[in-house]
């Protein structure tokens, strides 16, 4: 096999506990999004659309559904001669087992894997961000400026800035300072958690960090500050598009609902920068004679005999006659039975809303109602 210029390492081990019931059974990157997608589809599709076709996926938290969803990567054309998806769980050695302890530790424990592919550059990604980006542009930038590390940044408002890792840069975008969640931000350039490292530099940094007993083995908290201290060439790459960290139930809801706008931030219909997923073989959706659908996204396998307004219905959702679904997100295989009413709710995979049950509230500023997977709501 020819040497790879750049491979991606995708961190998909997080629990994402702020997503509450949605991540009880599965890891955050595997959570259903936008009807037919799962959150990780966006990062994986970005990879193949950027010609980066070797991807290591680091898993740890309840990986079964994620593993079986990703399979050998063929859903994203990441199989084949030049492509490869490798699932990289923590493992046991002669010295015993050891879990991933921090983002940098997860990469450190897979140095052997990266060495076996022998790339020149390594792209570090998170599996739980929503955006469309050509990483290849960022790679060309990294090469052009001769960086050791390039951090993709986005301009945020000064109010938001203290929630992020914030960069100070000079006029050439050379990073001069990096502060995690600063109370008084000196800049509004926020790290998106997307890094391109020259592999030899990262390799050395990971090995040094691994022996530092005080380190949390985190890219933002340890690796980047250390590289700055060592006066390595760190550059910021400014991304101008839409980027969203789906961290909470509110941001998950917003990001989904955004797809219903006439002109959404993420265009899932664009065939040139496609969002790939691992599709199933459900039949086309069916709207019956008593069904009504307005301002909604519907997936294959849905059967709609009730009323659906301003909602996203994932695969195989059934809405019976007389039922009503408003301002809601129904994950795969949800069944809303006759006469039930679901308003401003997120309903987890396989759950049932019993006949005549009422879920959620029409009141202004009402909280989002949340039902987990495989529950029966009466």
């Amino acid at each position: 096999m020819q040497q790879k210029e750049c491979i991606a390492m995708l961190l998909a081990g997080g629990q994402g506990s702020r997503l509450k019931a949605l991540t009880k059974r599965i890891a955050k990157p595997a959570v259903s999004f936008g009807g037919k997608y799962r959150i990780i589809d966006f990062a994986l599709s970005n990879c193949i659309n950027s010609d980066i076709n070797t991807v290591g996926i680091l898993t740890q938290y309840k990986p079964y559904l994620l593993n079986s969803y990703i399979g050998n990567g063929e859903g994203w054309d990441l199989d084949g001669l030049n492509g490869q998806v490798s699932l990289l769980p923590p493992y046991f050695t002669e010295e015993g087992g050891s879990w991933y302890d921090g983002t940098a530790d997860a990469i450190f424990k897979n140095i052997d894997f990266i060495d076996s592919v022998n790339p020149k550059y390594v792209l570090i990604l998170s599996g739980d961000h929503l955006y469309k980006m050509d990483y290849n542009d960022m790679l060309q930038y990294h090469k052009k400026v001769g960086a050791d590390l390039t951090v993709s940044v986005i301009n945020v408002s000064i109010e938001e800035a203290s929630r992020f890792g914030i960069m100070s840069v000079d006029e050439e975008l050379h990073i001069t300072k990096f502060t995690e969640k600063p109370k008084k931000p000196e800049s509004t350039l926020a790290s998106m958690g997307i890094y391109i490292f020259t592999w030899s530099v990262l390799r050395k940094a990971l090995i040094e960090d691994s022996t530092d007993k005080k380190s949390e083995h985190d890219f933002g908290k340890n690796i980047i500050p250390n590289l700055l201290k060592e006066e390595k060439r760190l550059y910021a790459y400014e991304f101008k598009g839409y980027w969203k960290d789906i961290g909470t139930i509110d941001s998950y809801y917003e990001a989904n609902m955004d797809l219903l706008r006439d002109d959404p931030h993420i265009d899932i219909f664009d065939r040139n920068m496609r969002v790939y997923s691992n599709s199933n073989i459900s039949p086309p959706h069916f709207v019956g004679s008593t069904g009504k659908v307005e301002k909604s996204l519907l997936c294959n396998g849905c059967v709609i005999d009730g009323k659906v307004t301003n909602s996203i219905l994932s695969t195989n959702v059934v809405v019976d006659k007389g039922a009503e679904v408003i301002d809601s997100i129904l994950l795969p295989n949800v069944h809303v039975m006759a006469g039930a009413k679901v308003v401003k709710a997120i309903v987890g995979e396989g759950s049932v809303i019993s006949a005549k049950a009422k879920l959620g509230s029409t009141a202004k500023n009402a909280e989002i109602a949340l039902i987990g997977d495989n529950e029966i709501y009466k």
Partner: protein
Amino acid sequence: MERLAGLISANYNDARFGKLTAHRPIAGIPFGSRYRLIDFSLSNMVNSGMTSVGLITPHLYRSLMDHLGSGKEFGLSRKTGGLYILPGSTYGYDLGKGKFSIRDCKGNMQFFERTRFDRLVMSTCSKIYNIDYRDVEKYHLEKEVNVTFVYKKNMDADVGDIVIDFDDRGRVKALRRLKKKEKKANLYLDSTLIDKNVIIRIIDWYKDNSYMDVIEAIAENLGRLSVAAYEFTGFARSINSIKDYMEVSKELLDSKVMKELFMGERLVHTKIHDAAPVKYFETAKVKNALVGTGSIIKGAIENSIIFRNTYIEEGAKIKNSIIMQKCKIGAKAILENVICEKGVVIEDGEVHKGTAGKPVILSND
């Protein structure tokens, strides 16, 4: 391990399809929002656990190859067995009547020699139903016969269909190809389960008369074979013409039919196109419709079947119609009893109305 293999003929045509088969074989006609006719035969086979299926291809095989690809979506991209592409005779395609010529079997004897099986299911692509052939096999073994035909009772049968006559004791007396329509017939569903040695013997008997249909060859020899007929009791329809195509498409909008065909234990497999979900805008109105993925709906749809990646503009009204993939229907256009071929663009305000019996076919030709 006993093995059941499948063999499908797609190498036949019928003038009653008009423009629909100008550039594609019957097997490749889009049907039911995301399928093509061949998906039903092929899915029946793989859903019955078969892992070796031969497909006798027609002259216009490109669209079928595109659709089937590796056979991966049908679980037939395998090391042992898999999907065998068997070129049909170029002439067979236009001869009409028969759908499964001896000649096409003879020309592909490699399939019989190289595929490991004890029994074979032979089928075509002109009937729509969802069956588990393992039930037919069980019946075949219980009856201790060499040949089992699958049929459905009390059906309307059309010219060219094959019907089965039984004697007083319920045994198969004859198979007849109809020259005029018949009602309440025992319609042969184009599936025959047959022992390996018997099918090979029949091909050999008729090797000098190779334009003959295999089923007719079997029918001529009922006395020399041991035959039975398995009654299929589910939903089953023939599609032999544009008229059938419209009628059966509309039957899919009966949710009972739709659920039996598409949502039971045995799903219908097809090529996966990986399009976005369907997006309904505020102005959309939809009632009694099957809609394929990737479509954007701003207009009104009623009693219709919409294929994937279709764009329906505001104010457009579509009724009793079939809109194939990648069509664009302009604002305020009105379509009734229409079949819109793949990729057709209807301009704003256009109006096309056919009748239930005679739909208008709009194509780019």
